[in-house]
């Protein structure tokens, strides 16, 4: 068999790119990314504790080689075990949430099928570096969690995690004096690196309910469920933008 003819659907350019999710039509998906040990799982646990009696929640973790995070959340008892799923990331935590999100999509779909009333799915990435972001195909909104222990220079190093996340969380402010990290410098640099987008200083030690972050998450859920969240545009297929390829 030789396919030198044009197969049925290859010739007609009727491609419809996957439509962006209509806000409210499925559970909101929030991504939580950030370097190893910055407090992502502790934040997920705090959010679950505060939100679980008002919303139907589920969590997807992306551990690098164990199921440590999922196990921690199950042991912490913040959610029923069947609302927590762990994705294996083949040595590439950022791939699993950015370049090839299929494992995470499977997990999200399975959780939604098992819990048809879900309001929110929190997806924790494996600990990675400052370049990590979530694909918009996976997370509707995303926060990036760094902590003060790497020193006050981290926000000005930038990287897509710092500059492009919807919320930058700077955690562990309680230990800033021991580290010698100047929070005013971090605040100034963060504002410069991500003008107009929010930054939240947090100490889960002092604020176990993660009040500032919880408030932001509540805003996101409200906007999503009211249908006022702005969907991220789906890619336009090349066939309908012929001529603009040079750009």
């Amino acid at each position, binding site marked *: 068999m030789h396919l030198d003819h044009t197969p049925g659907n290859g010739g007609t350019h009727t491609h419809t790119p996957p439509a962006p999710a209509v806000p409210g039509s499925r559970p909101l998906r929030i991504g939580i990314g950030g370097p190893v040990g910055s407090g992502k799982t502790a934040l997920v646990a705090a959010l679950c504790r505060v939100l679980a009696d008002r919303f139907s929640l589920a969590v997807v973790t992306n551990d690098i080689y164990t199921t440590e995070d999922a196990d921690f959340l199950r042991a912490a008892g913040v959610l029923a075990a069947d609302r927590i799923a762990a994705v294996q990331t*083949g040595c590439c935590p950022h791939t699993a949430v950015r370049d090839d999100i299929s494992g995470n*999509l499977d997990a999200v779909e399975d959780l939604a099928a098992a819990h048809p009333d879900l309001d929110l799915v929190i997806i924790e990435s494996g600990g990675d570096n400052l370049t990590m972001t979530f694909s918009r195909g996976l997370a509707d909104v995303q926060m990036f969690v760094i902590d003060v222990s790497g020193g006050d220079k981290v926000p000005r190093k930038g990287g897509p995690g710092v500059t492009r996340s919807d919320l930058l969380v700077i955690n562990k402010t309680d230990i800033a004096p021991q580290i010698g990290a100047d929070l005013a410098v971090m605040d100034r640099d963060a504002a410069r690196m991500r003008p107009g987008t929010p930054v939240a200083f947090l100490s889960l030690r002092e604020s176990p309910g993660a009040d500032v972050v919880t408030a932001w998450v509540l805003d996101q859920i409200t906007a999503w469920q009211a249908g006022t969240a702005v969907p991220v545009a789906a890619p336009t297929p090349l066939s309908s933008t012929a001529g603009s390829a040079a750009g």
Partner: protein
Amino acid sequence: MGAGLLLLGDSRLPAGGYAHSGGLENAVLRGEVHDLDTLTEFLLGKLYGTGAVQAAFAAVAALTAGPYTMPEVAPWAELDAELDARTAAAPARAASRAQGRSLRRVAKAAWPTEPWAALGVSPHHAIVLGAAATRARLDEREAAVLAATNVVNGPASAAVKLLSFDPISVTVVLAEMAGHCDQVAEEAADAARTVFADGDWERLPCWSSVGLDVCAELHVHEEVVHFAS
């Protein structure tokens, strides 16, 4: 041969392949693969065993999907059952279906008018690959080439990550492997054509690699793993 082969053969295709090592991780844990020679042996064993089966199923799926619009009614369930029967280890079946599910998601987005639902929610990877190949204007031999190369490329890139091999040396191994992949694909496509003519699916190749079945079974009991299979 066209760009469709590169599209579906690209390791960056977002269909979940990066998370699987095809048994390599467990072979490394057992000390069976530790240098380039043992990697080469592993890949050859895998290619001429399960690889030949995967290639034949990709080819027969390509013939079943046909060059035009995919048929609404096709023996997908029969093919699915035949491949299940040839995949002894349950974790290997699960890995194949997980990757098939992801590939079907991609195929459905790329060729939305085709009846992908007929393949099931989590079809075997080789079967979706064969069907998707025809949408990318490939024939049954090319579908088999995709399946055969997929069987060696995934473990090879896992080996680079797990054993810190020089990626150029691993590419040399893969270059040696290419001729073997072509040969396996050629024979798989021949077998698929013969079987497709009379629908006698039982006569599709049924090689297996017992060592790989053992690796697949043991892998799910390891505490620390990097790859899903």
